């Protein structure tokens, strides 16, 4: 995703005289304005606010130095709870969604009848607005009258309280996360379809087993899609907010208090804008660090050339 193609247009060109940045800058002017106003300014303002106590009534910051950061690391149990919840959520969702989506995409790549119908079905959850989906899931997972426990009852299992119990709430959210990961199925499916058939036929002639073919052909050639999906899934799931905020609000007993939910509560429920700016910066550094680590360890293993 991030290996930028070297295009001929970027090479110095002798017969062209209009190499001056004028036209290029003309076209990207909107981006430059937006970049300064909606990225650069908030980026530094956020850093500044993180060292202040922000008064929401007259919108004025008061310098407090490192106080916010000290409080966050030493005196705020919710910070540590939310950070460990978010890492757990992201890690489990990554594992389950990746395995499940590759599995489904693999099945769909095997000359399936009615492919477009299946593809639509697995993509469908992406279309349901997050609020509509979340409300539906609250209702499905209702311990007494919901569909889930109703179905479990048919086969004689007494279902748990799902979102209402600290033991199962997090797993319910991950389950729902996998349900909503159909975008990845489409990406993996396109990856499977790009793998040349001849490679498998050649492996067949050499007498390779199914497992060998999977490890030696499928997985390496699927690596660009895996890399793309893993990176985006980690970045997005560490920022997960809406579904969780609607379905559990971080409860019960803070068991699903994700980092972004905690941050939102501190900023817009308690109006502790300075403190939550410090939280936001820790989040930024965490995501940046994780992304760099993934790039360092995974990008070398990605095979782009076919």
């Amino acid at each position, binding site marked *: 995703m991030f*290996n930028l193609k070297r295009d001929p247009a970027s090479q110095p060109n002798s017969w062209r005289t209009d190499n001056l940045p004028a036209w290029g800058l003309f*076209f990207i002017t*909107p981006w430059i304005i937006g970049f300064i106003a909606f990225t650069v300014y908030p980026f530094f303002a956020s850093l500044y606010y993180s060292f202040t106590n922000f008064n929401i009534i007259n919108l004025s910051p008061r310098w407090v130095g490192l106080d916010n950061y000290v409080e966050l690391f030493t005196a705020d149990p919710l910070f540590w709870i939310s950070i460990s919840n978010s890492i757990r959520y992201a890690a489990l969702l990554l594992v389950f969604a990746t395995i499940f989506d590759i599995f489904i995409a693999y099945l769909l790549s095997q000359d399936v009848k009615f492919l477009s119908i*299946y593809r639509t079905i697995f993509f469908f959850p992406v279309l349901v607005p997050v609020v509509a989906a979340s409300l539906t899931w609250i209702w499905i997972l209702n311990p007494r009258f919901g569909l889930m426990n109703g179905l479990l009852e048919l086969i004689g299992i007494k279902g748990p309280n799902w979102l209402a119990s600290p033991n199962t709430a997090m797993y319910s959210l991950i389950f729902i996360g996998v349900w909503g990961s159909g975008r990845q199925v489409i990406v993996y499916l396109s990856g499977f379809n790009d793998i040349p058939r001849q490679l498998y036929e050649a492996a067949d002639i050499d007498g390779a087993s199914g497992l060998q073919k999977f490890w030696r052909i499928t997985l390496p050639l699927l690596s660009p899609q895996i890399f793309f999906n893993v990176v985006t899934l980690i970045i997005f799931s560490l920022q997960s907010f809406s579904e969780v905020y*609607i379905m559990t609000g971080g409860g019960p007993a803070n068991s699903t208090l994700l980092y972004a939910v905690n941050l*939102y509560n501190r900023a817009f429920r308690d109006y502790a804008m300075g403190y939550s700016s410090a939280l936001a*910066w820790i989040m930024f550094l965490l995501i940046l660090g994780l992304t760099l680590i993934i790039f360092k360890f995974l990008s070398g293993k990605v095979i782009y050339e076919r």
Partner: protein
Amino acid sequence: MAVLQRSAHGRRAMTNEERNYLLLQRLRSVIKHAVLIVFGIAFMLPFVWMISSSVKPNIDIFEIPVRLIPKSLRLENYIDATNAIPFWQYLWNSTYYTIFATIGAVLSNTFIAYGFARVRWRGRNVLFIIVIATMMLPFQVRMIPLYILFARIGWLNSFLPLIVPNFFGNAFYIFLMRQFMMTLPQELDDAARIDGASEWGIFWRIAVPLSKPAILTVAIFEIIHTWHDFIGPLVYLRHPTKYTLSIGLRLYFTQYGAEWGLLMAAAAMFTIPMVIFFFLAQRSFIEGITLTGLKG
């Protein structure tokens, strides 16, 4: 494969080995389809349950054991849902937000991506890397200063903080469109230039028409994104007349949590425009997702 071809001739009876092979193939196919059907049904169940609950009268909602197919229909739930909340107001707000955010995204990103993909100028690649880098910045970092900024200039409780930034480009869409525009043949531009076309003429007459698939993809993504958007309206829209469906529906739930028939009817009316939209633009949808980031 070889085994199959030989037996297709049908000249002689199949050996045991060939028969087993065929049987195994058929078994694999059956298992494959069975697994897909089971998961496919499981994936649709939430939606089926939403629709099913939306037409149940209140007594049937709390029935044990659960019933997926309603035994009696109460379509009035849909009318009641539009009266229980200012549904049409919310729908209009969501539509308004979606239309203008999408116009902004399409105009700005086509324009900007052209500057990054088709015009040659020094410093272009450095700036493009900065564009990519901004994707790493979590929304949460920008959220608080932007909220304070918009509060200062009096934009809270209006759609301006949600719509205006869309007219200044979005890193992901710029990336997507640039990747697409780079694949257009350079000869077209050169030919047009020889014919005396200006840079603007090339953009408007050549790049825009040829980039239709990418433009459509951006429009589709943006329509879905704004229609679904929850956190944006949650932060900026605090006045009930400005609520979008996302905010209004959640508010209704927190106030009247047990009205599942009406809630599911409202949720269905919120979802169905997206479903219709998907079927109208299905091909571009799938192509768009495949296009995102995997070419390049």
